[in-house]
């Protein structure tokens, strides 16, 4: 049977004929100076598609996500409503060379984060040496004194990391943010790929795209490597806050991919500094907890006593070394937006290396000189509260009204230590299907790294796209969507996707003709 293939009516304009990325760096065609040869083939493939056809198939694809239950949950007064994260069908493509650079940079970053945390909860040399201000750490709400003096198996605090990257006008990758607590979104990386393979086999065929489906097994492997000493075949569980968490689907997905039970706090109990799950045949010992519950809710005995989501006594197990918690409590101090500013120095301090992936220039408002500069240049800067995630509370100077700028100045002066500021980055863009055809939209990239004996980076990542025209805020809570992210194998080194891959362009032609008779 001939596969469906979009055949372009020659009388219609080519899909990308009106596509103009402007000054932004374009993920498909680069900085506009020259077409990158590796992506030329992808450009040509896109050009063969017809807009109406693409639109219809995109709608089908989104519907399929819903049918398969790939949803996050929004609660109204009366009901729980399942929504799909907006999905854009035009993939974001990364070349092998770009990926090699990202992968090395992410590994370096994660290594530094783990060394940093081990030091902070251990000897605190970096504070003694004055590289990072002591009060910035010790007064940080995410610093957990309960962890002091404890070294986790293999020195791993951050088992799962999501490092948010952006590209400016010159195309250089910059780190925008580290996520070292409970980064989410990896289920979309994998589900998006499966969706593309089912809905757009004709788009992906012939390209040598690296596989992302082994994430669950890799994560399981890395978690097992960090099990308490002497445990050969650890019982791993995924601890979820429960059905009311908006990321509940991801918890289900990851538990399934890893092949481990999905538990809630009430399923676990601690007895004699040992953790157990309640099962129909009694108590079953648990060795590793991949938790998607925030620190504050993890153990009511140690942290928030009001928490119903955690396990009383879990911290006592952790300190007794009978259980591994991933990520370890207290990692929030390292991915704090204020600490972020020191990351290049932290990398230098522990690894003696330059950061492979540089930071975005960051002004630390707790420092007088920086604050003065920020107040002076509010109209040019992006001001971010340090404790927030999800894109809340961000003021984008160049897009803010005069009133918003003044409001921002006031909160800044009230509590400068709560803010950092960064120059506005003209984020790179990707061709994206919109109401007005294929148009440039800003994107970022969150690669995921899992760490045990060593660090493995998922060859892909979550590409978030700001679907609103001109918007640079990609968070799903602020109107963002996602794209499939293709990491290509080095040329000539790898299998290509699709059953008739060897046919290359010829097979594409055949299918194009086949489409006419369908």
């Amino acid at each position, binding site marked *: 049977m001939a596969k469906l293939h979009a055949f372009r009516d020659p009388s219609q304009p080519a899909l990308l004929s009106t596509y103009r990325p402007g000054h932004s760096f374009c993920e498909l065609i680069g900085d506009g100076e020259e077409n990158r040869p590796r992506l030329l083939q992808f450009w040509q493939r896109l050009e063969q598609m017809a807009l109406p056809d693409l639109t219809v198939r995109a709608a089908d694809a989104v519907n399929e996500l819903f049918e398969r239950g790939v949803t996050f949950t929004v609660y109204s*007064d009366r009901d729980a409503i399942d929504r799909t994260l907006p999905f854009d069908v035009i993939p974001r493509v990364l070349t092998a060379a770009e990926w090699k650079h990202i992968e090395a940079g992410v590994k370096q970053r994660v290594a530094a984060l783990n060394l940093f945390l081990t030091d902070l909860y251990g000897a605190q040399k970096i504070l003694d040496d004055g590289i990072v201000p002591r009060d910035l750490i010790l007064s940080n709400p995410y610093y957990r004194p309960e962890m002091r003096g404890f070294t986790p198996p293999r020195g791993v605090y951050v088992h799962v990391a999501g490092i948010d990257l952006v590209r400016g006008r010159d195309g250089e990758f910059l780190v925008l943010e580290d996520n070292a607590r409970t980064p989410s979104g990896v289920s979309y990386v994998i589900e998006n790929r499966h969706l593309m393979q089912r809905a757009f086999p004709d788009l992906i065929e012939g390209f040598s795209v690296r596989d992302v489906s082994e994430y669950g097994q890799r994560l399981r492997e890395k978690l097992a490597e960090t099990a308490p000493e002497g445990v050969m075949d650890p019982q791993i569980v995924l601890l979820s806050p429960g059905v009311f968490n908006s990321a509940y689907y991801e918890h289900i997905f990851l538990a399934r991919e890893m092949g481990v039970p999905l538990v809630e706090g009430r399923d676990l109990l601690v007895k004699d500094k040992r953790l157990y799950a*309640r099962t129909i*045949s009694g108590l079953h010992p648990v060795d590793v907890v991949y938790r998607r519950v925030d620190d504050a809710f993890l153990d009511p005995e140690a942290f928030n006593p009001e928490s119903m989501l955690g396990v009383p006594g879990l911290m006592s197990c952790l300190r007794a070394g009978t259980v591994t918690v991933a990520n370890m409590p207290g990692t929030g101090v390292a991915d704090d937006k204020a600490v972020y500013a020191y990351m290049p120095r932290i990398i230098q301090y522990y690894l003696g290396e330059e950061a492979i992936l540089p930071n975005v220039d960051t002004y630390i408002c707790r420092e007088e000189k920086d604050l003065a500069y920020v107040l002076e240049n509010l109209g040019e800067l992006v001001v971010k509260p340090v404790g927030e995630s999800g894109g809340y509370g961000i003021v984008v100077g160049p897009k803010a009204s005069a009133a918003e700028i003044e409001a921002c100045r006031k909160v800044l002066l009230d509590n400068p230590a709560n803010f950092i500021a960064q120059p506005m980055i003209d984020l790179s863009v990707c061709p994206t299907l919109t109401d007005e055809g294929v148009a440039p939209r800003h994107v970022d990239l969150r690669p995921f790294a899992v760490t045990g004996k060593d660090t493995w980076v998922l060859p892909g990542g979550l590409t978030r796209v700001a679907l609103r025209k001109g918007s640079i805020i990609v968070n799903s809570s602020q109107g963002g969507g996602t794209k499939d992210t293709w990491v290509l194998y080095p040329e000539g080194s790898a299998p290509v996707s699709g059953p008739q891959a060897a046919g290359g362009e010829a097979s594409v032609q055949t299918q194009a003709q086949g489409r006419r008779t369908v």
Partner: protein
Amino acid sequence: MQLLSRHAECLFWLGRYIERTSSLARILLVQTAFDRGRASGSGWSWLLTLFDDADDFAKRYPEPSSRNVIRYYLNDRENLGSVVGSLGAARANARALRAMVSTEFWMQINRTYRRVDALPSELESESRLAQTCEQIQTDCYALLGIAQSTFYRDAGWRFFELGLEIERADQMSRLLDVRFAQIQAGTAEHGDTLGDFTHWSMLLRACGGHHAFRRLVSGPLQPMNIAQFLIFEQSFARSIAHCAMEIDGTVTQLRTHCGLPTPSRLLKRISDLHDLLHLAQRDPGLVRYLHGFNDAVQRELIALTNDLAVCYFGLEDQALAATAATSVPSETTPPRPPAQGSQSQSQDQSQKQGQSQSQSQDRSQATATAAPTTTTSRSQAKNQPSD
């Protein structure tokens, strides 16, 4: 690792709530058909007797008119024993089980729930009501069919089946009790007696037994024959005896297929249920004592549910210490998960964790599993998920 106790409990209640929804729809449907041949205003209030809801109903409705009773049992959100209430509870359990149930099942339960949820608070006509009830029934059969075709056959499947069979037996014993309760309460209409033909005929149809009964008995419908059929006929899937046999077999499978210990209290309970049935079958005056028999059946089923909770769902119970067969260490069994009030708090926390956008919930949404019951048959019938 064996199935989590919580998941086992959710599966058990998932089965119960689907069966309860289906049974309710069937009862409404039959009454609709029955009502057509009668003067208006007849009939409907017996439902309140059947489910012992008269007090709760009187709090919110001025009179037990057919319109009010239908609304109360079909889509009154405040009545947790309505179709929309039971189905909502089934869906809440399915949500907690999403890692275990198939996508097909999840989609079907959502479709079913949305359909009921979208019903207007008052249906425009009786024929619309009949259509609606038929649709709900069909939806429930579809759910059971999808479960049958897609569920993984581990211990969880057995708990799902146990829930289904226990609810089925319970619903049957309640149906059998209607007439007695009506006469007892002096609310029977038209001077009907216990042996009223129309009533028993309706009962037979209410549980989908008319066709099967006719294959077995060709003469005139005798109340005694019908009662015997509905209680003891092993080949009739809704008879109490058939359900008891299924329960027995399923508990056995927990041991033989799933390697779970079968605590002696559970075996004793099932044997008590069989004894009750055997004794009743030999009693020529059963119809006269039907009410006492039904009460006894319901008490056994409640006790059985409680035993399952103690043996497998981790319910704290003093009797546990005395039962050597179970492997749950009783002295350390911690308190049950928080119920009711505290749930909204944990839910709130759960949402905050994901920056979910909403603020408040309907209490009936706030649940995933059902708390086992203790005392009256009333609480059994109303047992809603609470933690």
